[in-house]
């Protein structure tokens, strides 16, 4: 072995170890399918009729393209980022807090929207959304979105509550009793954003422009609001099914929630409804993104098209209580969703929703002026602990 070939071997090994890879140009044409496709997804996002035979948007895709779909379920955005960093997957259904991290870390590749025939059917409001489009480049295809709504008990609230103050400030509810011990809040640091959004409306003097970009003063005000909330909340919710149980057995009458729980409780005959109050709401929007080293890009592009044009958008929106990225899926009968169903899930409330992003130190207020996410986590632990 000559010195130069040794060098080559060494640099190759080094490149492999450090994960160095040449910049990938976006695809220019779709070839034949590679026979496989692996997706990192939220639970319930990729259904093949095994949970409920009525909900299946994988079988047909596999039959028509020959791409066998395998799913790796992730529970948190951080898990998704970790899995994509590890590699070996083709697609990920990333929420707004994961997508920008994946782009910044060069883990996902730019998408050639011209190769996706149904691209034009995507909700125009999502086509250039900032959580997956960077410098005019598209790094994914919108999957689903939904609001964090205010769920309430219709026996206590004859009229829908107009403000989030029912969960933030102590008051007498329409049934004559205090809200103390009868409201819930989300057991995740991102709930600080809900508090910030409430303050944005009620304390404009704080100058909050985005609930995900808070300087020290604004952040402190949000935490103070949450400390007051701690007095009202007996237990915070993080598991959808525990919240459902608390609405049934624990006497909880109002809480921030997802359409998912609202639909399940309504289906069970519980007297609940949901509303987006005057302050607006936070929400999530997920994007399917393609790994930079994907071994099955052709299958992935076929999935992009399938995701937009098949029954997926319609049926998934029923299944998950979310909104399709293709508005036509609500009405054209490609699946089970109807116009009323989409309205229930919040399709018309897009403008009122501030979508989830990870708080970072360098924000629009300047470098190192905003409180980063890891502090949100430790401080929220303190708030729940009564500090």
């Amino acid at each position, binding site marked *: 072995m000559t010195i130069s070939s040794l060098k080559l071997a060494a640099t190759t090994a080094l490149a492999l170890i450090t994960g160095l890879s040449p910049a990938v140009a976006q695809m220019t044409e779709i070839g034949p399918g590679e026979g496989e496709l692996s997706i990192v997804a939220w639970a319930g996002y990729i259904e093949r009729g095994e949970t409920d035979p009525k909900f299946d948007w994988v079988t047909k895709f596999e039959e028509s393209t020959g791409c066998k779909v395998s799913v790796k379920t992730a529970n*948190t*955005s*951080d*898990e998704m980022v970790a899995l994509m960093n590890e590699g070996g997957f083709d697609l990920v259904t990333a929420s707004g807090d994961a997508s920008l991290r994946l782009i910044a870390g060069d883990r996902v590749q730019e998408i050639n929207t011209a190769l996706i025939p149904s691209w034009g059917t995507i909700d125009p409001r999502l086509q250039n959304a900032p959580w997956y489009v960077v410098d005019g480049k598209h790094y994914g295809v919108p999957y689903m979105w939904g609001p964090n709504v205010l769920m309430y008990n219709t026996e206590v609230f004859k009229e829908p509550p107009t403000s989030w103050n029912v969960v933030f400030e102590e008051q007498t509810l329409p049934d004559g009793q205090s809200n*103390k*011990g*009868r409201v819930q809040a989300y*057991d*995740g*640091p991102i709930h600080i954003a809900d508090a910030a959004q409430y303050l944005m409306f009620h304390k404009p003097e704080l100058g909050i422009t985005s609930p995900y970009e808070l300087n020290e003063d604004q952040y402190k005000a949000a935490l103070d609001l949450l400390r007051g909330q701690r007095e009202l*909340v*007996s*237990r*915070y919710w*993080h*598991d959808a099914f*525990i919240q459902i*149980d608390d609405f*049934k*057995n*624990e*006497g909880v009458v109002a809480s921030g929630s997802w359409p998912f729980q609202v639909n399940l409780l309504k289906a069970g005959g519980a007297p609940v409804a949901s509303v987006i109050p005057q302050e607006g709401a936070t929400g999530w929007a997920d994007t399917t993104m393609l790994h930079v080293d994907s071994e099955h890009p052709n299958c992935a592009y076929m999935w992009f098209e399938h995701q937009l044009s098949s029954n997926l958008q319609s049926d998934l929106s029923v299944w998950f209580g979310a909104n399709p990225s293709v508005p036509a899926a609500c009405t054209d009968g490609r699946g089970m969703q109807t116009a009323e169903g989409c309205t229930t899930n919040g399709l018309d409330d897009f403008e009122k929703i501030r979508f989830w992003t990870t708080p*970072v*130190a360098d924000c629009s207020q300047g470098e*190192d002026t905003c409180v*980063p*996410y*890891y502090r949100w*986590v*430790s*401080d929220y*632990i*303190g708030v*729940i*602990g*009564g*500090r």
Partner: protein
Amino acid sequence: MTSPTPAILPERGLADRLTALFWRHPRLLLAVLLTPPLLWLGVVYLGSLFALLLQSFYSIDEFSGVVKEEFTLKTYAELFRAQNLDIIIRTLVMSAAVTIGCALIAFPIAYYAARFARGKWKAVFYLGVMLPLWSSYLVKVYAWKLILAKEGIITWAAEGVGLSMILNAILAIPGIGGNSLSTSPLGTFIVFVYVWLPYMILPMQAALERVPTSMLEASADLGASRAQTFRTVILPLAMPGVIAGSIFTFSLTMGDYIIPQIVGTSARFIGLAVYQLQGTAGNIPLAAAFAVVPIVIMLIYLTIAKRKGAFDAL
């Protein structure tokens, strides 16, 4: 006349050759048998523990949230921030309370089983103690959530017999009460005691069974009353069993992160904090530092327990 059978039979195959090899080199067999478990213990078990320890000496960058791989004690200092100290104290108090609660409930049961139950009743007793261990832990905890709920069976029964006043008075006590049993620290305590009780009863019973009858007779002969015998003979001799049981209940409570998630006020315990810090915050150094806390506490606890002879009863 047939030729005599040779003393050493010819080798019949690979198995014979292997047997011979091991017979000639007994240490080789030992090495082959011991290497896999030792590798497991050394690499997988202790290795991950050291990786954890190592992480706890790193710190997280204040601004970017990226882990800095430089040795520092900064992360340990963070443990002493008010909200983190709260978590440690809360967990310790709960562990101690659960241990004492378990010991008080378990002692009469273990005493009866060890000294009075015979034959069929002994079997019934064992079954009764072990039965809860056969069903899923999660199912039991969720069942308790329903039992303790505001609209659950306990509140309902209390209303039925007119004891709501007492229940409400208990729930009004600051520190342990709450809106309902299922959202109060008291509820968390009840579920912990239920779940870990068998781990206290069994070692206690083992210790009580080993108290020789002759000693009790000697004590009676020397004029001791039943109470004196209990206090000066049975209790000291059963103590190692109590301590052995307490090691289980104490450490299990300290490490648990599921019960406080489902029953209680949502206030964090150490296990929950670790889960959240590494899972959603990416603050692995602080999670690792938190994870070291129970290890240190248990090492101190075990040292004391060893002095008291608890390991003889295991």
